[in-house]
């Protein structure tokens, strides 16, 4: 649960940084908004990897339990 909270915190800080800081926002608008597309793809990959990470841990716990 802590890891999800950490990822959520990272995401929100990233979003709020882009909302508050002008340089970040200008960066997103530059090069024909290509960074918006890249950020969106990275966001999806990050969320899916986070989900797989959580699943991995759960599987590890199940392995431990089946040993006992």
């Amino acid at each position, binding site marked *: 649960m802590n890891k999800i909270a950490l990822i959520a915190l990272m995401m929100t800080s990233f979003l709020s940084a882009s*909302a508050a800081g002008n340089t970040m926002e200008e960066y997103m608008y530059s090069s*024909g908004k*290509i960074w918006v*597309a890249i950020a*969106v793809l990275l*966001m999806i990959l990050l969320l899916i990897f986070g989900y797989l990470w959580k*699943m991995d841990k759960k599987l590890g716990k199940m392995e431990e339990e*089946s040993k006992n």
Partner: protein
Amino acid sequence: MERLIRQSWWKILGMILLGSALLIALQTPLSPGILSVEDVSVQDSTLEFSIIGYNSHFQSAENLQVWIQDKTHQYCAESVLTLDDSHIVVKMALPSPLPSNLFSVLINDDTDGTLASVDGIFIKGEVQEEAALGKCHQPITVTEHDSFSIPYRTILYESIRNLNFHVPMWFAMIFLTFFSFITAIIYLVHGKAKFDDMTVAAIHVAVLFAVCGLCTGAFWARFTWGAFWTDDPQLNGAAISTLIYLAYFMLRRSVQDADKKARLSAVYAIFAFVMFYVFVKVIPSMADFSLHPDTTDNPSFKDYDIEGKLKMVFRAATAGWIMLSFWIFSLKYRMLSIERKRIDNE
């Protein structure tokens, strides 16, 4: 179903589809377009303005032709000074008398095809609607840009590529929730525990993709609509549906008896899918206002994509994302069934 889940051909196919679609979606250039029309000035009876192009080839292209037009009149440029591939300065006689104040600016050349900036130029002055037809020395040619490229749209620009990332998240969610709808019905009919596990796994992964869709949608909206969250009915409908599906897990946790839990949550899953459809499809199509394409009167992305260049990439990406979501679902389902076997043995 059990056999399909263990087969690997669709996983490989899905990864090939997704990988190639993402590669094409990221590396295909945008079609050329007009970024802006600037420095409009009127001196005596000469109109002067400069045009900034995007991905255009003003310098290297041949037969460059520039004109402005309203609904019925066309006026051609007299001199075009090319500064570089994306910058030209245009001089022309001021239409006199003016048929309207707003004109579209169009460029045609052999490399880029016809580029348009709709209502791109505003000329001050008194309007006489029955003005004489404009004059063009050469006949105007309109051509299509024929190389493989992604449609150029103002406001969206390169972020139009998100069509292959953000939209398939919802298609994957619709696929998994529809799957859960079917398995929930089968569970209620047959009462086999494995269908309950399938429903749980499908909804679990569907919520992951819904969260992906919401996050990416909010981010994309920030840089195209101007805010992370808007009044858009489809956006709020999707958010409510995500909450409905989150409540599914709350319901499961709150019921102790295993059999009762499975039956109650199966009924809820059926209800949730119907609500999901109503919130995401029915209500947005009846709303007066929407920002999403293809709802109410908004044009769909299909309308921008005259030659269907986007369509093939989008279909491959959607199929790939759906197969990835089904793969993750199958892992989740296998974990749940192992756990169920262990509990049954104890």
